[in-house]
């Protein structure tokens, strides 16, 4: 991860922490940003399973339900 991406991840942590009123000391943010990135990346890998288990996204619904052609 380059410096710009790391800064973006850390900014995301600050933003999310503020949203959920979670006090996070500045020196903990780099490690927390890395852990959150890893968590989101891991959860990304189960996208197909999540679609299979439903409720589906609009795209998965449209892709998976038979259509009768354009009116």
């Amino acid at each position, binding site marked *: 991860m380059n410096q710009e991406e790391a800064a973006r991840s850390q900014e995301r942590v600050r933003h*999310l922490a503020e949203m959920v009123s979670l006090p996070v000391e500045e020196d903990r943010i780099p490690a927390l940003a890395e852990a959150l990135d890893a968590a989101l990346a891991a959860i990304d890998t*189960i996208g197909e*399973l999540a679609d299979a288990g439903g409720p589906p996204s609009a795209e998965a619904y449209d892709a998976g339900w038979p259509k009768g052609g354009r009116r």
Partner: protein
Amino acid sequence: MTATTRPRTIRDTATQLRNGDLSVVELLNELLARIEATDRDVQAWLDVRPRFLLETAATMDRRLAVPRTPPPLLGIPLGIKDIVDVAGYQTVCNMASRETIDVAARDADVVGNWRRDGALLVGKTVTQPAAAGVISDPCRNPWDTDRIPGGSSGGSAAAVANGTALGGLGTDTGGSIRIPAALCGVAGLKPTYGRLSGKGIFPLSASLDTPGPIARTVADCVALYLSMAKRADEIPAVWDRYAEGGTSLTGKRIGVLRSFFTDQVQDAVRAAFDEAVVALERLGAEIVPCDWPEAAGARTVAMYTSRIESAQVHRDLIRNNPELMNDALRDRVEVGALLPADAWFRLRSARLAVRDSIASVYREHRLDAIVAPTTPATAPLASETHVTYEDGSREEIGAAMTRLAGPWNATGQPVVAVPCGFDGQGLPIGLSFIGRPDEELALADIAHAYEQAHDFWMRMPPSVS
């Protein structure tokens, strides 16, 4: 080096007590002496009250003297993981924030069931802070006290391995019964999720938390499980059935999972697993190689579901007194608190899919059980942060120890863990039998047959000799 004396089991001890060959006071004195001799090093126990226990034991002996069938667990000494309420004891959960907490007014449901069935509750056993991890500090592994016992039910497993309790209560959210059972060389049973009451148990992740027993043998685990489930009247029949042998697995179809479950494991673990599969075939089982491509996804589901739910458990503490949390718990809770709702819904949806996928594996192959290694490595040194594999790769201890266990929390299936060998350093290796939901007893029959065909369960750690 291991001790050669046959270890006490609950079944044999219950018979001795009923026949008058042993008194509860004698048994308790034996255990208290062992605690005195070994627990300075092993540190499995937190709160043991000898005078009170001896009074209770004497009362139990008087009950045994009455010519009436005693409850099946009368006088059986058990340990309780310290996230589970026992009336009159604090439930500290190894957390600084709970050191001054009031004592519990009543037993957790499963503890109350043990007490009603006659168990002698010896005391509380050490756990990982908030049950969130596998180290269980300061408890150490009786097989080598420089090593961790696993967790988070590390104290209960170490106490059983060490012969200072005949059984222990554990809870399992990502492997916390099975991992310490494997690392300490004893048996553990994780029942189907939702099968036993969680009332009176401090939560880690409500949709995954599962209480269950740890004991020397599968038969002992079954007895403790039946008591926890308010089915103690079935214990004598189970013990009789197991006493008759039942070592043939003819007609049983056992699935063998590899790839995700064997690709990254220590060589000794792989070798012991391969030998176990051969042994099962020798016992008459039909071995069915099968694949479960969703295993890694199931592990992800369990891991991050647990993080999000534990953030809810500790939402006030993390905001008001985070300095009272240890680093591992704080890291976990912070990540869980920051994961967005989208992640939560994806985990929930994926969980339904992994349950369907494993159900279709059982259906397609007509399986009675699946076997897989319990952990990819034997007990790490307490001074280490990572497990090292023979190919030079390294893995953080918590991630390594939960990797093969977590998928079965996502699916909610029952699992029986038993020892299946020892590595070159004399450390125990664990094998998991994974069953169909709500079929704990059928699964236990298979695990029992494997266990009784070997002597792994009889070996005792050097601290006992």
